[in-house]
Each structure stands twice: as C-alpha cells, then as structure tokens.
C-alpha cells in the first residue's frame, strides 16, 4: 500500500458520528444497551443465590419435651431451615424426602433429654439428634450440615459453653455477611461487557458488509485503521454506560459497595472494553453475516461466563481449564474488578492482569487491521 493517503482523524470522527447517529436511531439496540445490564442484574442478583435460606424441613420429634421444642425454635431462628411438617414415624419422613416435599428431616430420639444432659456434663460427645438430608443437592445439604455445630442455648447449661470446639476462628473480610451479590455484581460487569462489546462491534462491521455499505466505503479514501477507530469509540462510551448502570443498581438493590477509587475502575474497565472490542473486530473480519458474528460471540461468551471465575472459583478449576481461563480477557477483568470494587485495590497493584489486557489489545488490533482488506477478494 502506498502512503498517498495519510491517516485522517477527521475521517475517523466522521465514522464515529455516523455510528452514534445510527445507534441512536436503532431503538432496539439502544434499548438492549440498557436492558441487558438491568435484566441480567435482576437475574443474577435475585435468582442465582448461593446463600441458602429457608430449606424446607420436617421434624421427627420422639422426645417431645420443652427442651426439644426450644431446640427446634432455635434452629428455625437461624433461618437456614424452616420446619414445614411433623412426622410420626421414620418411613413417612423418608417418603417426604424422596418425593421432594422436604430437603431435610431432624430426628430427635426419645432419649434426647438424657443425651443432652450427658453432653452438657461432658460425660459423652454422642450426638443429641440426627439430620437426614437430601444429599442429591450438595448446596442444600451443605447448608444443613452447617447446623451440626449449632451452639445449644439451654437455660440449664453453663453460659458460654460452646459444645462445638472450632480449631480456627473465621473472620470474613470485605463481605462479612457472606452475601453472594457482593461477589456476583462486579463479575457481572465482565459478562455483560463481554457479550455486548464483542457482539456490537462485530455486528457493526459485518452489517456494513451485509447491507452493501462496505462496497461503497472501500472505494472512498478511508483507511482501515480509521474505520476501526470510528467503529470502536462509540462502543467504549456504551460500555462505560453499562458499567455505570450495573454498579449503581448493584449498590441500590444489593448494597454492593461503590468503588472508592474511581480512577482505577476507569482504567481497568477501559482496558477490558478495548480488549473486548478488538476481539469483536477480529470476529468481524472473519464473519460474513451477522448471524455468524453472533455465533462466534457466543463461542467466546460461554467460557467467559463459566471459566472466568465469575460463577466458579478459578482456584477450583482443573489446570487445563485454568489455561483456557487465563486466555480470556474476562478472567483478568473479573479478578481486577473484584479487587478494585471489593478490596479497594489500586490498578497498579494488578500489573499481571493489566499487562495481559494491554498485550491482548495490541495483538488483536494488529490482526484486525491486517486482516481487514480494502478489497472484495
């Protein structure tokens, strides 16, 4: 290529203005920009919840003393279980677990009173009752087994005596109430930006080709880099807008803290938006139709949801999954935004992730510009 036509900011700006105008006219796309974060936030914030509350439970109380009733009340007060049925014999209780009516049954034996007494006098460590749980749902049964160590508040017991003997004391920093929204909302920004940024840019360029605009555009003096920049910048603004929506709603609805260090937030988010946009551009040089662009976006989106650490902890993944995970820009952003929003980290503390995204952008932009030819063949 000759150098007869130099880079012109004016032409890039012309594309930008055109893109913004088209975006503002396209009501459905515009609505999606706002609705996607909103709907996803509702979905992930309310529906997907790993804090287990009100597990339906049954009671098989063969003791039927005032003490056993106090214990049941104490358990209900923890809000983990809710006793919805009483049973008279074990068969009934098992049937209720099998048909899914209850997820757990508390069995208090007839000698409950005696067991409690010997335990309090430290004559024995035998359990005072038994939880029968539906082990097919590990999350629910896990929550119930947490009740195993419940301190007994028996009026006759020596005050402060905890029958459980924990080796470690656990202190939760940053999220003392262990609410999953606090972890999910910042991660959600990564998922939503991955989805909208890649899809919008790839579709924006493929659309020009599909509708025949490209044939005209490439006979004009416009250069590939001008076209790429003009296409990217409007979506940077869109990405920042979406981040603002998610963080604000997350704060209002789920009391997720707002980041103290807005500058760090801006730096890491811009990096991630740019990385996603360049990925979209690379897709656009490959896809022939908007449908293909969409399919390729989903190909990136699914691992970004499952492997980025947004849903499952990175450290729990097998090593090969971690390698794939490290390749995805979303993984690095999930790490960074949790650090910045929840742990008040500064962007410069996160040099590995910042460095990776910078490299990703540089490589992606180079591939996209090289692959985008101003020719039809």
């Amino acid at each position: 290529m000759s150098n007869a036509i130099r880079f012109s900011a004016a032409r890039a700006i012309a594309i930008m203005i055109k893109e913004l105008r088209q975006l503002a006219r396209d009501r459905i796309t515009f609505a999606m920009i706002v609705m996607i974060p909103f709907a996803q936030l509702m979905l992930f914030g309310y529906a997907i919840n790993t804090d287990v509350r009100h597990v339906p439970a049954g009671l098989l109380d063969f003791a039927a003393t005032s003490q056993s009733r106090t214990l049941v009340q104490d358990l209900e007060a923890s809000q983990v279980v809710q006793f919805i049925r009483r049973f008279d014999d074990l068969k009934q209780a098992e049937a209720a677990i099998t048909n899914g009516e209850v997820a757990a049954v508390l069995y208090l034996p007839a000698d409950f009173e005696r067991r409690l007494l010997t335990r309090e006098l430290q004559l024995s460590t035998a359990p005072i009752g038994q939880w029968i749980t539906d082990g097919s749902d590990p999350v629910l049964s896990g929550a119930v087994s947490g009740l195993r160590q419940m301190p007994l508040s028996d009026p006759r017991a020596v005050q402060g005596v905890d029958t459980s003997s924990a080796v470690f004391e656990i202190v939760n920093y940053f999220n003392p109430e262990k609410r999953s929204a606090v972890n999910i909302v910042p991660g959600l920004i990564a998922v939503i930006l991955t989805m909208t940024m890649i899809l919008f840019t790839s579709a924006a360029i493929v659309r020009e080709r599909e509708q025949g605009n490209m044939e005209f555009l490439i006979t004009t003096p416009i250069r590939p880099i001008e076209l790429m920049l003009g296409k990217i910048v409007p979506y940077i603004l869109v990405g920042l807008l979406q981040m603002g929506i998610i963080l604000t709603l997350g704060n209002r609805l789920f009391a997720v803290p707002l980041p103290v260090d807005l500058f760090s937030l801006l730096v890491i988010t811009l990096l991630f938006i740019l990385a996603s946009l360049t990925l979209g551009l690379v897709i656009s040089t490959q896809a022939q139709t908007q449908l293909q662009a969409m399919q390729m976006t989903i190909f990136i989106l699914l691992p970004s949801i499952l492997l980025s650490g947004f849903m499952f902890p990175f450290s729990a993944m097998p090593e090969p999954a971690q390698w794939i995970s490290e390749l995805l820009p979303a993984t690095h952003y999930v790490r960074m935004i949790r650090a910045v929003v929840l742990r008040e980290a500064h962007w410069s503390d996160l040099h590995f992730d910042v460095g990776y995204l910078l490299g990703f952008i540089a490589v992606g932009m180079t591939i996209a510009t090289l692959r985008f030819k101003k020719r039809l063949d």
Partner: protein
Amino acid sequence: MSPIQPELAIETQGLSKRFQNYFAVNQLDLQIQKGTIYGFLGPNGCGKSTTIRMLTGLLTPSAGSAKVLGYQLPEQADELRLKIGYMTQKFSLYDNLSVLENLDFVGQIYGLTRSARKARIAELAELYHLNDKIKVRAGALSGGQKQRLALAAATMHQPQLLFLDEPTSAVDPENRREFWERLFDLSDQGTTILVSTHYMDEAERCHALAILEQGQKRADGTPKQLIAQMHAAVFEVSGDNLRQLRNALMARESVISTAQIGERLRVLVSLDQPQPEVWLKAQVSTEHQVEQTRPSLEDVFVANTGAAYVQRHPL
C-alpha cells in the same frame, strides 16, 4: 476532446479475473476516451460488475493490466480512489440516516471542509431535486430518489471518472430519462462515465459501448459503428402464420435470429448468405411481405452474442 490525440481515461490489456474455475472476465481490452459516456452492455453474469470492481480497485485482476486515469492498478488503487466516484448496483448509503446526514458523511470521508460541504450539498440537493427530502431518512425514499441520492453522493468530490453499475435497474422510465440528462450534464463538464446496463435504450445513449458476454468482449465502438459493422441484414416479414414461419426460418443456418414484434417478424440474416433479401423472399410464401429495415442496437446485440457469435467464431 483534443482533436489530435484523444486521451484515454481507461486502458486495459488482457484484463482477466478468475474465480476458482471459471473466468468472470476474460482477456478484456478496453480503450475508453476521456469525457465520454461509455457503456457495458450485456446480460446478467456477463462480467460487467466484475470489470467495474477491478477498475475501481476493489478486486485484484488475475491477469492483464489496467491503467485508470493514468494510475496503474492494483498498485495505485489508493491514489485513484480520490479521483473516482462509484455508484453501486445496490443502494449502499445508510437507510437510517437522513439525506443530509448521508451526504455530510460522504463529504467528510472525502475530506471536504465544513463550508465546502455545506456549499456542495446545497448544490447537489438543488441539482438532484432532493431539497424537500433533505431531512428524510434514506430508507423512506422512493427508488428514483434513492438513485439520485446515490448519484449525488458518488459525485460529491467532483470525480474525474464515474462508475455506475446498473444505475437505473430500480427506476421508472421517466426517472431514467431524467437521470440520463444529469449524466450528459456531467459528461459535458468533462467527467468520464462508465455505465453498465442491460437496457438497449440506455446503451443507445452512450457515446461508445462494449458488448460483453461470458466475460468476453463481443464487439465495441459507437452505436453507429456497431450498427454499420453488423454482420447481418435485418428484415421485417408481415403476413399470416408467423409462428410457423418463425420455426421454419430458425432451422436455416443463415438466419441468426427471429423475433416477433406485434404483427411482424423481425429476421436477422447473416451476411455470409449472398443476396440476403432475395434469399429470404425465396424462403417465405408469396403471401408474406418482406421489407429490409434499419438495424437497431438490439439487432447488433443479438448478432454478436449467443449462438450467432459461436457460429461466426468456431472454437
């Protein structure tokens, strides 16, 4: 045009484009003079669009050379882009932008300053009757309006050479006439125009044209030259039972083509046949009248393409 040595806007030698296993354009030699309106006449799939795309630098030729406005293609395609305008077959501006926004965008792309754009858009809107539609989105325009908008956009930067790929395929006859008036205005101002078409009446308006078929040039020249050089005599036969007569004549080797036009049968007889009029009269019954008539461009087209061509140029 200079009377001594007319300058060429486009010159190609052996220009070819091969797609996988067939030649879309095959060994095309063209010489198009500056300031003329040059037509590509041919059926769909004859290589008109592919040729235009090569001449605008959109496609790389598989073989041959092309010089457009003095620039060697494909090497100097970038420099060429500032000097040419291209109106695509399909409307290629933005449906959800207004007429004004579309034109403004094109002006910006060609690097016109704000004031130059304003003046040029006003001029174009006036010339192409788009003033009352200036705020209307392009998607809501009629076929004729869209076409005028596309022409306005393609001429925004006052190109020396304008490529029009089947510009009037979606336009009614009145708008077509009007469109051609604008083309002659542009030509009068010195713009060279290359237009592809499959309409005979449009081809007849061109200063010169090339008849293309299967990627090859079958004939070229001015409409007058093409008619004069036609290797056939044209007759009109009137009388009864024309359909039967037609079938009988088509079996004759000397008959290039027959076409019924209302009450008459138009017959093209090859000049390989000595004394074609006498011969034809001998073929028809005495009830039929045979009259020699002036050939049209359509006759030229028929005589130069299809079976007629193969007959005269055996492989």
